[in-house]
């Protein structure tokens, strides 16, 4: 249930590609590559639902910038893939159209919110997928499904056409089976975009070139707050193994403390709820949405009725988002969260004066069973502890498949300073070369 919209139209396009070969035209870099797209990224004339009943029949009238870029390279969009509703969640159980399952063990969640992306890549149904990462939504499912998952520096990839959840911290990110494939995708989709004022100029950096540069002499900080309380022993062991492998490659690893990490999840949920409350306000069913006639309603009663289509997790965050930035409460919640964000950024910038990279497990726990945590939102929130820092500070971060324990994957996360995406991919590639993982059992 991770592809819920196979893109027949684009498969038909294969015919066009056939013609292209016969006529000897120049072929794009993604020529013939099946790529899946998270269902919160707009593809013109196709449904883009955000896994929500609210947008069940929404047909995007334009292409996201990343989609236009991939179309130019002859990519085949094999399908739109499942996610948590509006990217809120980390298990893909909050999709209005049903959960996705982990291909390593179908009783388990694939992580989220880009669960469909990770499943489609790890089960060899496509070469790569585009997800979105607001607090770990690319890296978390990548870790749970044993794929590479990349969250670039904020502004490196255009968000134009990505349906916003928390726009000030989220990024589109590629998921692929190898670090090289990830760098290849990044080469195609990164760069400044006039349609997104927050994008940065990367001077057409080639992320694949010198990817095997190694990490000899690089200083790597182990984030103390991300290997302490609440971490599964198997995850702890894997992290230690990863560190010693990096040391074996000539890196210098030592612990570094980021004190603000302990407040980061609270700050993250406060900020994302506030932004989501605003970003999702446009879903009033007046201009697009689902079938519900407006006649006979007073405006406010119509709005409250149509917005009942949001699922439980979105509703929960909408309510929080209405409260935490409101007059009389903003000082206690939203503004405090913004303070944590800026202090955390200061701390991590300090750390990057001393270290080239930072390391932690991507997720402190092993994948859990479908239904196991769905009624315990707070314990679900805490699973984000290691991933939200990169979003709150705008730094690039990657999850690399590292180990399979009892048939369940564990990913290792590396972080780098802003615009050091190339260094990050080089380090990820070095670590990737030290492990040989079993094939996915399906």
């Amino acid at each position, binding site marked *: 249930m991770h592809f819920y919209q196979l893109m027949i139209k684009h498969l038909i396009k294969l015919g066009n590609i056939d013609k292209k070969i016969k006529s000897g035209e120049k072929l794009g870099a993604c020529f013939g590559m099946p790529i899946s797209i998270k269902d919160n990224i707009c593809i013109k004339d196709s449904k883009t639902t955000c896994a929500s009943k609210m947008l069940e029949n929404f047909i995007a009238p334009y292409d996201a910038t990343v989609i236009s870029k991939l179309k130019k390279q002859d990519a085949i969009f094999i399908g739109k893939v499942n996610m948590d509703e509006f990217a809120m969640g980390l298990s893909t159980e909050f999709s209005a159209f049903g959960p996705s399952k982990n291909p390593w063990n179908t009783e388990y969640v694939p992580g989220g919110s880009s669960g469909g992306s990770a499943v489609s890549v790890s089960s060899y149904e496509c070469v790569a997928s585009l997800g979105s990462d607001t607090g770990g939504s690319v890296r978390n499912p990548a870790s749970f499904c044993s794929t590479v998952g990349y969250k670039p520096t904020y502004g490196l990839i255009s968000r134009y056409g990505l349906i916003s959840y928390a*726009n000030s911290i989220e990024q589109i990110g590629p998921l692929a089976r190898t670090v090289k494939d990830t760098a290849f995708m990044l080469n195609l989709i990164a760069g400044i975009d006039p349609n997104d*004022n927050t994008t940065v100029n990367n001077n057409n950096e080639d992320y694949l070139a010198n990817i095997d540069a190694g990490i000899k002499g690089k200083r790597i900080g182990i984030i103390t707050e991300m290997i302490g309380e609440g971490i599964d022993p198997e995850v702890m062991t894997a992290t230690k193994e990863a560190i010693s492998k990096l040391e074996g490659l000539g890196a210098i690893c030592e612990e570094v403390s980021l004190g603000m990490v302990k407040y980061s999840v609270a700050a993250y949920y406060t900020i994302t709820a506030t932004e989501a*409350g605003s970003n999702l*306000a446009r879903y009033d069913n007046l201009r697009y949405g689902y079938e519900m006639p407006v006649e006979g309603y007073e*405006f406010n009663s119509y709005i409250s009725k149509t917005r009942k289509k949001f699922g439980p997790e979105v509703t929960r965050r909408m309510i929080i988002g209405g409260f935490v930035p409101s007059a009389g409460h903003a000082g206690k919640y939203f503004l405090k969260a913004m303070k944590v964000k800026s202090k955390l950024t200061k701390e991590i910038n300090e750390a990057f004066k001393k270290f080239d990279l930072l390391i932690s497990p991507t997720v402190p726990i092993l994948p859990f069973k479908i239904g196991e945590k769905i009624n315990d939102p707070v314990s679900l929130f805490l699973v984000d502890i290691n991933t939200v820092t990169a979003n709150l500070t705008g730094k690039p971060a990657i999850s690399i498949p590292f180990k399979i324990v009892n048939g369940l994957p564990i990913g290792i996360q590396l972080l780098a300073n802003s615009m050091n995406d190339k260094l990050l991919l080089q380090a990820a590639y070095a670590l990737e070369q030290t492990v040989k993982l079993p094939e996915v059992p399906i």
Partner: protein
Amino acid sequence: MTKIGLEIHCQLTNLQSKLFCSCKANYREFKPNENICPVCAGMPGSLPRLNQEAVKKATMIAMALNCTTPDKIAFFRKNYFYPDLPKNFQITQLNIYGDTSVGGSGTILVGDKKIRITRIQLEEDPGRIIYEGSSSKNQITLVDYNRAGTPLVEIVTEPDFETPKEVRDFLNILSDLLKNLGVADPSLEGAMRADANVSTHGGHKVEIKNIGSFHDLEKAAHFEITRQESLHDRNIPVVQETRHWDDRRKITVSSRSKEEDMDYRYFLEGDIPWVKINPEIKTELKLKMPESISSKKDRYITKYQIPEQVADVLSSDKFYSDLFEKSHSQSNAKEIANIITTELMGLEDTREKREASKLTATHLRDLADAIQTGKVSRNSSKNALHQILKTGKSVSQIISELDLGNVSDETELLKIIGKIIADESEAVVQAKSNPQTINYLVGKVMQATKGKADPTLTLNLLKKQIGI
């Protein structure tokens, strides 16, 4: 004591595109919902693309109103649900976390009075709601998003006005200033709107919204002052509230909405990075800024000896002062200023007439020269001007076609004068005893020549003939 403060919304109508997308800023020519795109319609996934030109124009307004201009500006989201807001939030500016809007505090002189400007902010205009249907029961609400995203500058004043007349004078000055800057045409329908805050006797302030025109703004302020004074006389306290101007009944009506309790949950618009306004940009804008109305007026008076009243009228009107600049020289400036303010502005008193007019700067220059060299009398020049506007023909052509040329041929004039002296013997006698009354005879000559006689020559010849 009466205190009135204003919030004026002015569209930057002279811009090509909307504030955050490339749809047209001039939405007026479109059929409903045809001037929209994914961005201004708030489609999922679309992002605002800041129109840098709008930032410059708004900064120019701030400079012209002597406001402080910050080194960097930020945008905020004002969150509320309304059918005319495609995103259910408005991208606007806010100064509660430091001065980050295009303009901070400033002042403008209205007569001798200093009116303080609180701030100037750049924001997007919402769409338009149109109500159809006669009764409230079968009313239909239509929404047209063509206007959504139009660049809007909000100018907020301190409560420095004490009478509705001061408000009107200020709005006239502001409207001329915006036109002069070339940023807006305030005469376009809906291009300039205002809300007023009114309080009397130190009581609560009442906000009046929904005022359609400046004319009504003055009326609404009048009404509201009278209403509050009469409450005060009867010892009834004024309630702090929002009232709407009822255009039909010309009164303010309490709006039962809870607008004053609205919590807009303002926060930074993350999709638009802070915009730096470097000192170089400010200098460039200052250089580009057209001459202010007051400095134009001073120049007209000192350089060309144009009377103050004429200079005042001419300098406050961008269209005519531009025309003046194009047509005048040092020698004919006064004459041209005169033609424009006493004749032309009257002949072209509507936008339609102005647009239909075929008059050019060359016409004006030629006409002034013809008057100054005595080719045509000032009186006949009015006729000529009228024809120029209609036909666009050259001044000399019109003078000869209409036979407007001055009669300055002595023999011909003497013939006419001889006849007048014979007919008006009584007046001749009177003129001999009281030379002042000779003007009556000059008038008679003018009548006989249909105003074409050269007045100085006529007077001299008459005097000679009568022997005074």
